[in-house]
């Protein structure tokens, strides 16, 4: 993953628990990278280690950490760093989710070293939409849920995100029903 992800985790920890905690978490994770460069690709393992270390040090379930990170990613990292682009994603949640597949497809081209997930949507209605998440990475379901919840907050639209299909249940991707 690109450094911006790891950087985002770092920001999340620092903002919520302080610098010292980050140092502890970084040491605990065993990741020997002092500075993440946003556009540089890093081994996925680093991200997993960091998330794991946060969970250990803060004594939180990993799922909660990932979910929080998903929200953080949308509400802080994306908004701060790519605020315009995010705004250009759509005028409301529904439109953003609608544009989500195209958005990610464009990102794939921009970041050639990225192995981006693919999003699809279906079952679009006035009050809900199905978001299909295809990824080669394992264990990021809660992160995606956090992302979707974060988007709801970004567009000030209270949402409920339900994972209605998962690779853990034998399917080839995760399906989230986002209702508002």
């Amino acid at each position: 993953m690109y450094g911006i992800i790891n950087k985002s985790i770092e920001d999340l920890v620092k903002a919520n628990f302080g610098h010292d905690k980050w140092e502890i978490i970084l040491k605990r994770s065993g990741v020997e990278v002092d500075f993440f460069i946003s556009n540089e690709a890093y081994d996925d393992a680093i991200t997993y280690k960091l998330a794991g270390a946060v969970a250990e040090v803060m004594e939180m379930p990993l799922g909660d950490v990932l979910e929080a990170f998903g929200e953080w990613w949308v509400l802080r990292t994306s908004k701060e760093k790519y605020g315009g682009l995010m705004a250009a994603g759509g005028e409301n949640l529904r439109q953003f989710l609608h544009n989500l597949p195209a958005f990610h497809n464009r990102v794939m081209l921009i970041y050639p070293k990225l192995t981006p997930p693919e999003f699809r949507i279906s079952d679009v209605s006035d009050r809900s939409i199905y978001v299909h998440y295809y990824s080669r990475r394992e264990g990021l379901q809660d992160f995606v849920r956090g992302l979707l919840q974060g988007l709801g907050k970004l567009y000030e639209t209270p949402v409920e995100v339900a994972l209605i299909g998962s690779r853990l249940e034998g399917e080839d991707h995760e399906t989230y029903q986002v209702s508002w």
Partner: protein
Amino acid sequence: MEKASIILSDAQLNGLFPFHFKVDPTMRLIGCGKSLSKIVSNCLGAKFESTFRLLRPLTIEPTFENLQGLVGQMLVIELLARAKTVLRGTFEYFPATDTILFAGSPWFDSVDQVVELNLVISDFAVQDPMIDLLHVLKTQEIGTEDIKQLLNTVNLQRKALERDKIELQRLSLVARANHNGVVFTDPQGTITWCNEGFCNMSGYIIGEIIGKAFVAMLCGPLSDQSAIRKMVDNCNDGISVELELICYRKDAGWFWGNVKSQAILNERGEIQEFFAIVEDVHARTMAQQRLEASESRLSTVIRNMDIGLLLEDEHRKIVLVNRVFCDLFGIPAPPAALVGADCANSAEESKGLFEQPELFVSRIQQILKGRVAVTGEALLLQDGRIFERAYLPIFEFETYKGHLWSYQDTTETVNHSKKLRMQEEKYRNIIANMNLGLIEVDLEEKVKYANQSFLEMSGYELEDLVGRDARKLLMDESARMMMDEKQRMRHEGNADMYEIPVRNLQGDIRWWIISGAPSYDDAGNLIGSIGIHLDITAQKLMEQELIVAKAKAEESSRAKEIFLANMSHEMRTPLNAIIGVFRELKRTDISPANSSYVEKAHAASDHLLSMINNILDISKIEAGELRIEKQHFSIRKVLAAAIDIVHVEAQKKHLTLKNIVDPEVAEVYIGDDLRIRQVLLNLLSNAIKFTEQGSVTVICTVQAANATHQTLRIAVTDTGIGMEKAFLENIFHKFSQEDASTGRRYGGTGLGMAISHELIQMMGGDIYPSSQLGKGTTIEVILPMPFGNPELLQIEEVAGSLDFQELVGKHILLAEDNPMNRMVAQASLRHYGIELTEAENGRIAVALMRTQQFDLVLMDVQMPEMDGLSATKEIRTFDLHTPIVALSANAFQREIDQCLAAGMNGYVTKPFEEIVLLQTIQRLCGHAEAIVATPIAQAATTSTFKLYDLIKIRDIARGNEGFVKQMVDLFIDETPRVFANMETAWAAQDYPKLKGLAHRIKPSVEAMGMPALHNVVKKIEVLSLQAPEQGALRTLLDQAQVILAEAILVLQTDFP
């Protein structure tokens, strides 16, 4: 071509170019893309030039024709309604509709413009990379920002690193250059680094330190092991520790070290290493310990002093107070609780205790103000107590730091002093007025003081005596010499009392008893002596009279003894002849009538002998002559023998005689069987005498027992006339019979019961009579009897055999001046086949001994010409060892001792019982071979001799029986060994050695009070020196061994 041409609908055109517009030849906009319409309002129908401005190419006037000319070129068109918003694209001319189409999209510098125009991603054609371009730009912008941040971070880190480096260098320098020991260890406690300070401190070089266990290297036997364990445990738990510990050097010396240690953790919280600083605080700690010990001692002293102490600081706050102080002032709180309390008002609070409260308060204020030490102030309390107060201000470098109060309850001391003064006064008066003369002298014996009584006793005035040596005034030369000795004793600190004759001023000899004691001053220095004098002249005279009286009494007693001895001799000698004659007469063939007369005469003479014996027994008892012997005997046999003797008398009166012995009664006891038999015979004879019909019964039972003794109860019961209660109380009085008529009727001296009583008491027992007049009497003897040895009893019985066959043919010399007695002895001995040669006196006997061989000599003691003792002594000088038996009518011990000392071997009293005489002869010559082999038996039967007398040892022991026992044990242990050596010397004919050994053993034998043994040993010594002869020495040695063996046996019994 037509087939290949594509006709786009407006929707398709919008999909591909959502920002397109179309212009007709009038330059009006006849078509606007959906996205362009979002950012340009009222676009459709508007004039081109009022909506757009062609920025590139600039020079072209915006006409339809000109626009046509721009087909194929890149155009940049500005939206007039949206400043800085430009479109980038190209024109295409469609002749069929005479329309120019603009195909392009907006060109944004940043995504913000997109947002400002409310455009979203779906407003852009899918193939339009504009939005992606913006994304890339943003990403690059972020990347650039990252790099800036990174550079900034790196820069900060570099600066931090430099700072850290400097810090590290500084710390490293601190660690290295620190004179304290700095040590790093691995998690196992093994030293990985240390500084020079640690090397210096421990005495090891660094190579010896690295790799060693820190604790093992630093600590040793005196180190506090529990503190070390705690330190290690705390460090392992990540807790830093500081403690003071005894640390060891390489040379095994130690010092007090302050050890600070802590764990260094890694990022995972695991122990990476330990770090310790060791500081040598030995001097400080020792000083602290000394200070603490000193303070503790001081505090303890103060706390435990018998004086109430209160230490206040300069602000009058209590620093220390003790229990006694609290008790004195009735303060209920514990002393420790008062520390820190303010004493400002304490005088006011406690003034009520004192007789003069206001004075107490004002005096304290005065003292505190003065800050000058105060001592010995007496304070009277209301309750009658008296306190003594002292005050001591404390200054430190001239700065007042507080003060110490001390209060002591001196009530008792003051009262005691008062009492003492009164007593002193009293005694001074007593001394001054007493009849005892008191004199005090200095070390030169010069008189310092003499009381009135002394002046009266001596006749001198005080001024005559003071400063002078009283000895010279009052004493003669010999008394002065004695006083010199006393003076020497006083100088050694000894006091004593003595009597001394003095001459008073009038020249009269007076006897004084003086109690003298050394005199000391208050510091304990000897300053002279004090003597108390009592004039005992009157007592002395009385004493001298008493001594004379005593000597007279003793002389009288001696005269009585001599009289008794003479009487004994004088009476026994003819009685011996009379009894002997009757004995021989009975052996002759005489008529029945004469036989009856002889029988009666024999009985009468036996009775007479019995009375004489009783009188002699009483005399012996009174003179302390009678001794209780200790030999192994059977009480059953004694009882049976006694019954046997009285049997005939009982039969004559048709009385039933019963002897009942409890099976519990032991077979053998140690005691005087002859004396027990005597008592039994007396009791039985009385019982038979006073019983006309019925029975006489002896019952012997065990009343009590322990491991060594049985207490026997021997009851003699008769059915006789009985006794009045009043007489029973006097039954043991001498010469008592119930009434005169009884004496006449039954005969007897009235001594029997008195003798029995005395004998039983001498044996440690008691005797109890009980009787009912007309019904009978029981005399109960209670006698403690130690167990004896059956083996020894057997030997005695062999020795006491009544078979005298072996005496046949023995040749005996009889030295006897009395022809009747010679005749009696002649008759008796011949009857047993013994050949007898007679000598009328000692001199003839000695002469016969020079020329003839005899198996034994019977030697009368009192003979004319030469008595038996002298004769024996002379015979013994011939080196002749023929046994000599004394024959004497004197039954007193003194004579027996004299006989043995003269060299006789045995003793038979006259008138002799035939059996006793024969047994004695048989023992000494008939069983000649058995003498050495059975010395104990012999000793037992000849044990009328006093074997030992510990009076000398007891004198030395002064009541310490343990010492006496030790001496006896030593004798028992040592003497046989000396005798064994003497035997060896004899065998080797080493007479000087034999003499030396005899000489050596003599004092021990003498100390043990063994005259017989002493006599023999002395002979051995003399003989070895002057005329050594092996045979004679052999006999003496045998005699000595026999006596020694017997003495040891008795000693062992007496001192178990």
